């Protein structure tokens, strides 16, 4: 198991280093996809299957395709003839992250250095047992936990939308209101993108039809 952790952590870190080292933005975008795939594998290694798949679908899929689309739309080849950056920026870019890493190494020994406990799936299944239902009609969560598999998506959904009854050990404040705020944020972002991409009316030629 630690072998997979080190392999995927290496993919994530090497992809990130390639992201800032390649001069061509297309190469940077591709190495960023590699970095995100390594990160998604780390999520899956942490039993967060839903978040791992979302990471691949949204980040490595949608967002990076958007980046590649914009890079190719703007046709950035001509910008690459630049000479080296200001050495002061280079120095700051190396020293400040280095200070951050040193601080991290100073604080990390206070974190317990032990492997995570294995998930107690069979024990957790008892908490999801509903006395009002027949044994064959228990919830999906109870059935999967009984079989020894983690119903990751169901538990995320339960945490997000809250639950009724007192037979559950998942403590959640309920995220219905934040979810609606996120929906409004996405709507505002969509409207904002459309407003930003519109050409101004007075920049059009005079003889264009209105």
């Amino acid at each position, binding site marked *: 198991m630690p072998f997979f952790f080190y392999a995927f952590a290496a993919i994530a870190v090497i992809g990130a280093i390639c992201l800032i080292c390649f001069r061509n933005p297309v190469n940077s975008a591709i190495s960023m996809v590699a970095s995100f795939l390594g*990160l998604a594998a780390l999520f899956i290694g942490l039993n967060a299957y839903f978040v791992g798949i*979302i990471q691949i679908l949204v980040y490595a899929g949608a967002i990076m395709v958007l*980046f590649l689309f*914009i890079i190719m739309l*703007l046709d950035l080849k001509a910008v690459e003839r630049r000479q080296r950056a200001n050495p002061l920026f280079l120095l700051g870019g190396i020293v400040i992250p280095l200070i951050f890493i040193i601080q991290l190494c100073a604080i990390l020994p206070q974190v317990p250095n032990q492997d995570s406990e294995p998930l107690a799936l069979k024990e957790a299944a008892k908490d999801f047992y509903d006395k009002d239902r027949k044994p064959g009609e228990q919830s999906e969560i109870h059935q999967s936990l009984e079989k020894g598999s983690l119903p990751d998506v169901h538990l995320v959904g339960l945490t997000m939308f809250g639950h009724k009854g007192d037979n559950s050990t998942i403590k959640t404040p309920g995220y219905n209101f934040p979810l609606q705020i*996120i929906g409004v944020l996405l709507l505002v972002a969509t409207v904002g993108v459309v407003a930003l991409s519109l050409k101004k009316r007075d920049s059009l030629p005079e003889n264009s039809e209105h």
Partner: protein
Amino acid sequence: MASLQEYLFISGLLFAIGLAGVLVRRNIIVIFMCLELMLSSANLTLVAFSRFNTGTSGLPDYNGQVLVFFIITVAAAEVAVGLAIIVALYRARQTVNVEDLTSMKG
């Protein structure tokens, strides 16, 4: 299974690499990609804490993973708006190099 320390170190390393990219690179699109990397490394911290905080129930703490879900949503909205701003900028100035964008310099 690796320890919490190692996960937090990888997360911090990715964050530092992203920070270095933001400071060193001059291409605004690559700077934006490095910002995404920093957001994503914060997600790794949240998921690691969620997995290692099993508590009494024996299951991971799913509140952390819900927060990751919200962060990914906000990042997607941010990318859409940011890339639209970059396209508008490129239309106005014909450049994506931050050293050429000095009109707000004091």
